[in-house]
């Protein structure tokens, strides 16, 4: 194979990564002399990812960008890979490893943003919030939750509990249903993973409580955006995975060509998260469609 | 019965017997299987135990084998009293047991089955099985029993009779002081039975006691010093060798005289119902079999172990594929792709393996009887419990099935009664051709003649009956014609005028009859 190969390895399959894939496709259009791959692991575990990276290196990939399911504990694996090909992280970072750089958003910042949105939306009211997430123990969840708590600290709003669902949509929905029954005092909710807000929306809709409970969301699920547009959700905090895919690939290509100027001193390339609310949701949606279409 | 009484030596014998049972009792919900039973077995004595189906013979033996606990009574083995034996204690006490129902492991080979539970070991702590030693020990036993297979043969490849031989070999391999044989000959053909009787004589000479249970009274007559008759769980009589006669045994067993007349010959042999033309089965693909079975006749099919009779029956019934030739029914070609094709035409098979194929042990009697023809007891696909029960009660009465009720699990019945259930399910339908593979295996004399009578009644009603049997007396007594198989082919066909044990045997061993070429 004469073309150099770049791989983008994600942590699990979800629509979120479709956008990154679109970004990678866009990059592919501009990087004719490279072969870009976008890989999902068989399972959303660090073990599966590390095995996948081993196999990729074996198969001759020249650089990898990874969104690790468990970066903190994959440092040895990262270093093993980094010893063979340039390794970049995205989505979640492992600063202690020998990765070249991190490109992505800061989950803590995103959590803080969401907390601020909640404070704003509650407008001084007392708040008892319930959070919903896939894996309670996952780093991105912990960081978002921590950021959220940090922002609501002392603002009369409390995050009572966060319910985990192991990325089972049925349980994600049931959790909201059950909270509505068991915790009538709850007046605000946060959906930390991309599929949580739609489940919150559906449960509220079924219970006829849309609009009565303040919801702040993460990510850009169509239902989430619809709810924001409709005014049922206060706002949603979105990352820019398209940019990660696009910029990431360009960065890796440049790096392989010997141009290391794209890597800053602190090795962190933060693509900021954005808050989408009623005012900018239409523009955002149009942009999203265009991006996906551009990837074709 | 007090402990003191049982402990006191019996006045009749001054020598302590090897085994002494006193007041042994066992009841199941709804049945008293044994109602206080006493038995002494001396060293080197061969005791015959006879009784009707369900009389409690196997129950008694299972108590000795440690398989079940008696409700009360004592068991004294070699002077040591027990309230109940465990399997381990029984084995250690030198009691070897051939169960009425086979208990083999078909995933292991013959040698492993013989030594299961007490393997010869090697390499001390490693506890490995000494496979050579095992084989060497088993080979002579098999030879002694006249088996044609080696210690390495996988049990799953053996026929029922061959498996029975393995069971016996297993009992012999114990260094036993008492061997219990619960109907060991029920599926053994003549020659192997002779071998077994010879072996029993040898055991006796070695001072080993034998308890021998059989429904074949002639074997009992020949083999035993003493016969104990059981009826409804109680002792009905003891006979010493000199007193034993067939008639006496029967009278004690069933409480009345039995006219031992085999059935009269066919009134009229009708048209050919079932015909086989050059049929080849998987066991003997190179041997085509041709056979005509007429309405109104009972055709006996004799042969040695593994001669291919059961295989032929299974092929006709649609269990096993046919690899050549053709079948015909009522003059038209017959294609059997599955058992449904056979049963729809009234062609039925009562298989030799009762436990595995003949009946469903876990179903109530009534459900077993109606199973092949369930639609007849159903309306709109829904089974009518009442119609089913009526039918079952009728069968129970007709065949005299001894059971607390027709809702009792078939598995809880005595062996003989289970066989009656296996028969009853076909008799409840409208048989045209009925194939009975060892129909009286494990059935007591009373019931046996009942079944012969039923078979004859069927034949007289125009049914074609094919009876596979290894019981020489039965084959000669019941059949209108006898076909003999040898290694997959029909080696001869005998008409009534030429019926004799000798002729059947000669053909079964593949030799021609005196003064004749081969048929």
């Amino acid at each position, binding site marked *: 194979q004469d073309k150099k190969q770049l791989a983008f390895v994600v942590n699990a399959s979800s629509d979120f990564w479709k956008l990154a894939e679109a970004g990678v496709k866009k990059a592919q259009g501009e990087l004719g002399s490279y072969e870009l791959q976008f890989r999902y692991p068989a399972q959303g575990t660090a073990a599966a990812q590390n095995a996948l990276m081993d196999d990729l290196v074996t198969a001759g990939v020249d650089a990898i960008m990874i969104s690790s399911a468990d970066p903190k504990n994959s440092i040895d694996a990262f270093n093993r890979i980094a010893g063979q090909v340039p390794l970049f992280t995205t989505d979640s970072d492992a600063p202690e490893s020998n990765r070249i750089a991190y490109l992505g958003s800061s989950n803590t910042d995103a959590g803080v943003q969401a907390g601020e949105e909640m404070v704003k939306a509650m407008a001084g009211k007392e708040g008892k919030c319930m959070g919903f997430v896939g894996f309670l123990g996952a780093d991105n969840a912990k960081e978002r939750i921590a950021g959220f708590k940090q922002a609501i600290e002392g603002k009369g709003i409390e995050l009572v509990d966060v*319910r985990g669902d192991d990325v089972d*949509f049925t349980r994600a929905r049931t959790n909201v249903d*059950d909270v509505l029954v068991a915790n009538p005092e709850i007046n605000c909710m946060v959906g930390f993973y991309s599929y949580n807000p739609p489940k919150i929306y559906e449960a509220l809709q079924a219970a006829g409580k849309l609009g009565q409970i303040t919801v702040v969301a993460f990510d850009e699920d*169509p239902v989430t955006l*619809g709810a924001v547009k409709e005014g049922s959700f206060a706002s949603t905090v979105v990352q820019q995975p398209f940019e990660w895919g696009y910029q990431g690939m360009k960065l890796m290509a440049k790096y392989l060509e010997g141009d290391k100027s794209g890597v800053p001193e602190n090795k962190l390339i933060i693509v900021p998260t954005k808050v989408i609310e009623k005012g900018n949701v239409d523009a955002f949606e149009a942009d999203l469609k265009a991006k996906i279409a551009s990837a074709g | 019965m007090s402990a003191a009484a049982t402990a006191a030596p019996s006045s009749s014998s001054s020598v302590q017997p090897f085994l002494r049972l006193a007041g042994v*009792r066992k009841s199941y919900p709804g049945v008293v299987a044994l109602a206080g039973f006493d038995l002494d077995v001396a060293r080197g004595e061969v005791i015959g135990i006879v009784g009707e189906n369900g009389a409690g013979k196997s129950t008694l033996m299972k108590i000795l084998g440690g398989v079940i606990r008696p409700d009360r009574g004592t068991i004294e083995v070699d002077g040591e009293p027990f309230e109940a034996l465990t399997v381990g204690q029984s084995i250690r006490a030198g009691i070897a047991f051939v169960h009425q129902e086979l208990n083999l492991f078909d995933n292991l080979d013959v040698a492993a089955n013989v030594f299961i539970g007490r393997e010869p070991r090697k390499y001390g702590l490693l506890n490995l099985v000494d496979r050579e030693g095992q084989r060497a020990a088993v080979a002579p036993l098999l030879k002694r029993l006249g088996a044609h297979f080696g210690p390495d043969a996988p049990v799953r490849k053996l026929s029922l009779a061959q498996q029975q031989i393995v069971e016996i070999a297993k009992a012999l391999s114990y260094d036993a002081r008492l061997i219990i044989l619960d109907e060991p000959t029920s599926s053994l053909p003549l020659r192997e039975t002779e071998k077994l009787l010879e072996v029993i004589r040898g055991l006796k000479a070695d001072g080993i006691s034998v308890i021998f249970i059989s429904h074949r009274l002639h074997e009992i007559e020949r083999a035993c010093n003493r016969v104990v008759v059981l009826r409804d769980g109680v002792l009905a009589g003891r006979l010493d060798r000199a007193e034993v006669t067939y008639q006496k045994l029967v009278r004690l067993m069933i409480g009345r005289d039995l006219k031992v007349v085999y059935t009269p010959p066919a009134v009229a042999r009708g048209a050919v119902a079932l015909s086989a033309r050059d049929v080849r089965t998987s066991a003997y693909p190179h041997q085509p079999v041709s056979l005509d079975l007429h309405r109104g006749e009972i055709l006996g099919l004799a042969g040695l172990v593994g001669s291919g009779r059961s295989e032929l029956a299974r092929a006709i019934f649609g269990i096993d594929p046919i690899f050549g030739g053709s079948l015909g029914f009522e003059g038209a070609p017959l294609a059997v792709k599955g058992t449904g094709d056979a049963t729809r035409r009234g062609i039925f098979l009562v298989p030799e393996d009762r436990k595995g194929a003949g009946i469903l042990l876990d*179903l109530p009697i009534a459900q077993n009887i109606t199973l092949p023809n369930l639609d007849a007891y159903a309306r709109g696909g829904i089974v009518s419990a009442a119609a089913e029960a009526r039918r079952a009660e009728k069968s129970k009465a007709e065949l005299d099935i001894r059971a607390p009720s027709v809702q009792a699990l078939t598995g809880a019945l005595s062996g003989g009664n289970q066989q009656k259930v296996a028969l009853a399910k076909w008799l409840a339908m409208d048989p045209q051709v009925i194939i009975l593979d060892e129909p009286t295996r494990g059935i007591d004399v009373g019931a046996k003649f009942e079944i012969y009578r039923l078979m004859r009644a069927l034949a007289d009603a125009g049914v074609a009956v094919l009876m596979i049997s290894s019981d020489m007396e039965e084959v000669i007594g019941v059949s209108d014609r006898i076909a003999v198989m040898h290694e997959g082919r029909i080696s001869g066909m005998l008409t009534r005028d030429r019926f004799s044990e000798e002729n059947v045997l000669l053909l079964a061993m593949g030799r021609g009859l005196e003064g004749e070429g081969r048929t």
Partner: protein
Amino acid sequence: MNKKDLGLLVLILVVGLGVYLRNPLFLSPNNLANTANLIGLFGLFSIAQGFVIITGGIELSVGSMMALLGVLFVDMVGRLGVPWPIAAAIVIALGLLLGLAHGLLITKLRMQPFVVTLCGLLIYRGASRGYTADATAGFPFGSTYPGLDFFVARPWGIPTSVFVLAVVGVIAWVVLHRSVFGRYLYAVGKNEEAAKFSGIRTSVVIAAAYVICAGLTAIAAIFLAMYTRSVSPSSHANFYELYAIAAAVLGGFSLRGGEGSIVGVILGTILLQVLQNLVNLLGIPSSLNFAVMGTVILVGVLVDQQWGHFRERRRIREAARSSLEQPAE
């Protein structure tokens, strides 16, 4: 209702009472309806599983099949604009076909049910992920389809899935416990060989069990897809076969075949759902969800069984005693 079912019912009532005492909202109409909805949904494919288990088989592909059928249904209705009754018919037909394929592989080619359905588990999951290229299939926001809320409606406060379960349950009960076919299922499960020797076309019976199972699973798949409203093929209904098998086993089915009742499997489903509900209602950390479920099942089965043993022993002992007092004849 047999004794085993009764034991299970008592267990459910005890657990329910316990939860109610700790949190009376357990019996609030809303919570009951939510739980009942899940019971309806899970009950459907648990009964389906029961039909296979009774033959001594097992159907491991339930979860994956629900993902595949769910993805197809949502995609057809949501993206391709197929009218939903047609989409539903296609999905159910496909389900029946898959069931038939399993049945034929098991009966005609004599493969082990575990192997066939394990491969199904892998293949259907892969197929559904491949179909959407790992994306989530969902309905566009705000879209409505006339009549489609049938699947999520709650007439008189009772979810439709419960009505469907009731109907299916009654039919399944009649089929399994009263019909000729049901008798054949038991017979085949208890001893296939002997059933064959009774003239039963065992292959047809077994294959039919897999077809029925897949058909019911397909219906459940539509309900589930409508409940989650979006289907992420990699995680949708992941390992739901375990729930189904657990419900059946709790309900007295034996994995060796030939044993089990419809009432039992429905009660099993109810218990499992009440346990799930309890975790949220009592505010037990989500991480302990499984531990609670496992413990209750273990204790429940244990108590039920030991109680049965105890009574059986006593009965035998009494039979022995009474027969001693009045010797037969």
